[in-house]
Every structure is written in C-alpha cells, then in structure tokens.
C-alpha cells in the first residue's frame, strides 16, 4: 500500500531511492542551504544517505518527509511533510515537525504553501495529532510566510546551533481546516 496525497498542482508520496538525483539537485545548492546551516551536500552518496535515513523513519515512526512532485509531469521539486523529532529542540522532544524544502527554480510559485497545507491537513485529519510544530531561521522570510499562511502561530524565538530561529505551533483545536 502506498499513500499519495494530491493537491491542486502537486503529488506527495514517499521518497524513493530513485529520487536521489532530485535530492542531490536540491541539497547541493548553496542558495537552498542559505538558512539551513550553509552546508550543502557534495556527492550523490550523501543524497542517497538522506533518502535511506528518511525511509528508515517511515518504518520506525510510520511517517517522515515526503517527495513533492508536479502533478502534470511528475517532476521532483523537493520535499515536504512531517517528521517525528526525537531529539530536543527548543525544549520539545518527541514532537511532530512540519517542514519543506524546494529546488530553487520552484520557489515563489505557492508550491511550499500548497504542500505544507496538505501536510497540516494530514497531521490533523488523518494522523489526528494534537499539536504540530515548526521552526524557521530568522531571515528566512519565504519559510516564515508559508508557516503564517497555513495558520501556524509564532510563539517565540530560540537558538538552534548558534542560529536564531522562530518557533511555530498549532493545536488542532485552533486548526480551521
């Protein structure tokens, strides 16, 4: 059984080993990594490791980030989805984090919003989660705008590995669908 999430323009499905070129394209770009620690990957093996790591989460946690494809031509444009974060971030542990990352040529087309919104729907309506969390580095206006637009609430800032980040939360009782 494979789960596919469909939106107006996108398909979200599990990341597959065959997405490694797409992940490499995404994660080897310094501009994509501007607010992600400025440490893009350099080899296709690293892309493969990222996919293996996410696929392990599907098994262990039943969830992980998904590949995002354009519906019209099935082109890989990035990833989005929920991750069970087991380590401590901003005083939270074992929480569901919403995130996304897109190849630069697909920025500013509303894909991030469209994918993030579908993932939030999935979190509350399918997984029945109580609270979804997210964070974005200060200065990453694109990411901040997406989180605000899907209705997540900025509840403060914190330092994550020397970078100041915004913290976002949304409880299902405040989710308007």
């Amino acid at each position, binding site marked *: 059984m*494979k789960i596919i999430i469909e939106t107006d323009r996108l398909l979200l499905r599990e990341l597959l080993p065959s997405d490694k070129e797409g992940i490499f394209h995404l994660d080897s770009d310094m501009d994509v990594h501007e607010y992600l620690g400025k440490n893009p990957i350099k080899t296709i093996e690293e892309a493969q490791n990222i996919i293996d790591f996410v696929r392990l989460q599907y098994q262990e946690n039943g969830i992980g980030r998904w590949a995002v494809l354009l519906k019209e031509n099935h082109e890989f444009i990035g990833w989005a989805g929920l991750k069970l974060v087991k380590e401590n971030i901003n005083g939270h542990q074992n929480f569901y984090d919403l995130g996304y990352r897109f190849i630069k040529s697909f920025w500013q087309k509303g894909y991030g919003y469209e994918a993030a*919104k579908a993932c939030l729907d999935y979190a509350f309506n*399918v997984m029945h989660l109580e609270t979804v969390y997210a964070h974005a580095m200060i200065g990453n206006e694109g990411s901040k705008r997406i989180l605000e637009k899907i209705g997540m609430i900025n509840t403060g800032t914190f330092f994550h590995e020397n970078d100041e980040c915004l913290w976002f939360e949304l409880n299902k009782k405040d989710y308007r669908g």
Partner: protein
Amino acid sequence: MNLIIETERLLLRELLLSDTEAMFKMDSNPIVHKYLWNKPVETINESREIIEYVRKQYIEHTIGRFAVVLKETNEFIGWAGLKYNDKELNNRINFYDIGYRLDEPFWGKGYASEASFAWLDYAFNTMKVQKMDAAAQSENAASNRILQKIGLTITEEYLEDDVRWNWYELNNPNI
C-alpha cells in the same frame, strides 16, 4: 488535500460526483445486490445521493468508502474502504467497518482483496484504528472468503430480516 492509496493494480481515491454513472451501472444490477438487500437502485438520482452521502462522511468522520479505479485504464470498478458507523448495526455503534462492492465484470480477479488489504493496512498503521469489524451474508461465499483472506475472523452469526449474516472482527495487532 486528497488522499490516494496506490496498490499493485488499483488506485483508491475519494468517490466523486463524476462517478455517478458508473455507480448507477453497478448498483442497478440485481446480481450485484443479490447478497445485499435485493434492492438495486432504479434512478441515477439515487446513485448521486449515495455519493453525496459518502462525501458527507468524508467531512464528518474524515473517512468513508473510496472509489476503486484500475490503475492501467483509470476505469471505475466499484468502491472499497472504511466506514465510521455512528448508527447502530448488530448492537454496535461508533465503530469502523471495512467493506467493498465491485461491478460484476470485475469480480473474481482479486481486486476486492487487493483493495481491502490496503485499507486494513491504512486503518491499522496510519489511522491507528483499534479494531476492524465487517459483515457479510452467510451465503455470500466470495465476500466471506475476502474477509477471511485479509485476516478477519467470524465472531458471531446473526439474523437481519430473516437473513443470516456473519460478523467479523480483527484487533489491531500493533496496539
């Protein structure tokens, strides 16, 4: 967000109003309704109402039966999936059941089992449903075989309008 479940040969997606004609073709066939209540639908309007009723369940319960479509041709062949029963059935209320109905040309090809395996997987592993129920008329050999094949077991026999039914259950092995 639209959920689609993909199996080897099938796509499971929400029932749409554009499925009305295919639903009518299936549900107006007396053979399809032999082990239901022998009341096939008579007008296309009834089929539209059924789809509207299921679509209301998607909103109220975030689930309901889904259309079954052949991956290869995109052809509608019937429905399968989960229903949250908020009305009493065999002395039970507020439970999930699994069910399916395929148009006659698509019987005997393992499609109902394939769809039901996927739905059981989705119910137990994604929705974390605690227990799955199902019912089939005792005489409906094919339907009983499908429920047994996907792992449900008969826990009760009961009568509804003088017809014998088997009640099936399976607890989520992961909870």
